[in-house]
């Protein structure tokens, strides 16, 4: 076991221990906080796949987060009112079942990522950042100006969806679901990044020309990473919608994209558990600074600045030292 693996396990264990501890002390709010951290960590893990391993600096991942949320909200609200979501070209009933909702959220997120990725990957560098941002804004404005599902006001669905054999309203049980999905996503990321494909992906980040020279087309490799990343983030969005029993365009806004990116960078880009550490610390800071001052975002901003300037490898980087090759595609 390398030092980083131990740290990864420790971070994940700390999150679980925090939630269980809070549960035993009967502090439901802290459990919910941990759940939020786990969900944001999942979103971060998704983005990390594109950003950390593929070098794709996407500032548009809120689009996937939001679409996951909206799929959940729309299905749940239709299930509540007993009306079908679609009657043409096929009938699609609403659903309250997480096992049914998740795949739909992921497929929707994946399709959106396919469309956005296919166009955005024609560009590189600064263009890529701005283009992903602009596409996410497009989805955002779509949600704002589409009155059917609440428009600007968002969409509430009152009842948390069901998971077989679990009471999803119990904070600790819902935390268990989210943490389990996070664990699965982490294992998935570990497997993917060490596979043949993962190596090709990292090669595409490091040097496009050389990747092409060995006979791999970076475009396809990167697009797959972008789509996978979008699917994981959409799943996180679905969980987040269920946590709040509410979706709104705020989930799609570019602040959300920025925040997801902050989780990743704060923890450490391209580190397996980086996003987990990042999201946990972000949520904690948000909570603690909120007590200090009404204007906690300013403090948070200053803190982030200090971290960016003095600790380029993120928090995990502080402990393990910089990875030998962390250059992102910069041209």
């Amino acid at each position, binding site marked *: 076991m390398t030092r980083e693996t131990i740290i990864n396990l420790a971070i994940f264990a700390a999150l679980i221990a925090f939630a269980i501890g809070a549960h035993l002390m009967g502090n439901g709010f802290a459990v919910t906080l941990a759940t939020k951290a786990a969900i944001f960590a999942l979103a971060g893990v998704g983005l990390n796949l594109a950003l950390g391993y593929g070098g794709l600096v996407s500032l548009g991942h809120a689009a996937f987060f939001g679409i996951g949320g909206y799929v959940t909200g729309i299905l749940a609200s239709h299930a509540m009112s007993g009306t079908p979501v679609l009657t043409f070209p096929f009938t699609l009933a609403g659903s309250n079942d997480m096992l049914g909702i998740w795949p739909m959220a992921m497929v929707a997120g994946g399709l959106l990522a396919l469309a956005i990725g296919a166009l955005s990957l024609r560009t590189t560098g600064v263009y890529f950042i701005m283009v992903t941002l602009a596409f996410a804004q497009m989805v955002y404005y779509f949600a704002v100006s589409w009155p059917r599902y609440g428009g600007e006001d968002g969409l509430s669905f009152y009842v948390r969806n069901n998971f077989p054999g679990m009471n999803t309203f119990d904070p600790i049980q819902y935390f268990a679901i989210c943490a389990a999905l996070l664990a699965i996503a982490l294992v998935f990321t570990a497997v993917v990044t060490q596979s043949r494909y993962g190596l090709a992906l990292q090669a595409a980040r490091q040097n496009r020309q050389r990747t092409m020279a060995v006979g791999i087309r970076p475009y396809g490799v990167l697009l797959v990473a972008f789509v996978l990343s979008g699917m994981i983030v959409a799943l996180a969005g679905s969980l987040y919608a269920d946590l709040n029993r509410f979706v709104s365009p705020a989930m799609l806004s570019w602040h959300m994209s920025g925040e997801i990116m902050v989780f990743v960078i704060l923890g450490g880009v391209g580190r397996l558990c980086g996003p987990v550490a990042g999201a946990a610390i972000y949520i904690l800071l948000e909570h603690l600074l909120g007590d200090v001052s009404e204007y906690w975002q300013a403090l948070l901003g200053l803190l*982030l600045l200090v971290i960016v300037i003095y600790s380029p490898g993120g928090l995990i980087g502080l402990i393990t030292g910089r990875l030998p090759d962390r250059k992102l595609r910069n041209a």
Partner: protein
Amino acid sequence: MMLFLMAAGLTLVFGVMGLINLAHGSLFMIGAFACAFVAAATGHYWLGLAASLLVSAGVGALIEVGVIRKLYARDYLDQVLATFALILVFSEGTRWVFGSFPLYLNLPELLSGAVTLPGGLQYPVFRLVIILFGAAVAIGLWLLIGRTRLGIRIRAGEADREMIAALGVDIARLYTIVFALGAALAGFAGALVGSIQSVQVGMGEPVLILAFVVVVIGGIGSIKGALIGALLVGMTDTLGKALLPGLFAALGGGSGANAMAATVASMLIYILMAVVLVIRPQGLFGAKA
């Protein structure tokens, strides 16, 4: 035209310094607040405008020296995060100083009211003035970049920053100037827009995204691209919002048509951007991406 001012500043910073600056929207907001504050304190609108230029340029220079300078050698990622952090600091900082209520600017007599254009169309004087300002800035920038010594250095810095440093140009100072100039343009745009709408926290963000779209369409680093991109985006947006409802009503009719039209109209400029990207990934006037 206001979009052009904003985008020109952005493209200057992007193109020359290779820096992605999300805090450009904050500078826009700072300019607007500076203008509103000074205009209210002194009663002179023109002083407010001057203040918006000075304050935003000053803040821009401070940002460059304090934060950005440490990040040139880093990835875009760190720049994105740092400027995102700056947004948080500035938005909350402004809210802390000025409160969350919007401020309003009173236009001087000279600029309020409307003129009758040839053809009998009534048009507000102030919007004409903005167009004039925009045109003046466009010409000014074109002269500055194309005809002056500073412009030559800026262009040289764009091409090869090590080489021009080796030639004895103080590259650090040059970058501070460029960044301050970009910031001043943003602040100026903010002051002008603040005079039409209200001045409030967060006003810079929608404009920032629009400016991104303009820069992407026009091509990074191209002032001409920024101008044409801004015109294109402005026209598409306005025409879309004006014409689409009628078009959709004529085509489909029904109650859904209106909502549909509004939805499509709000997405139109992004669709425009997607089309441009499919045809020319580097933007209309961009060099190689």
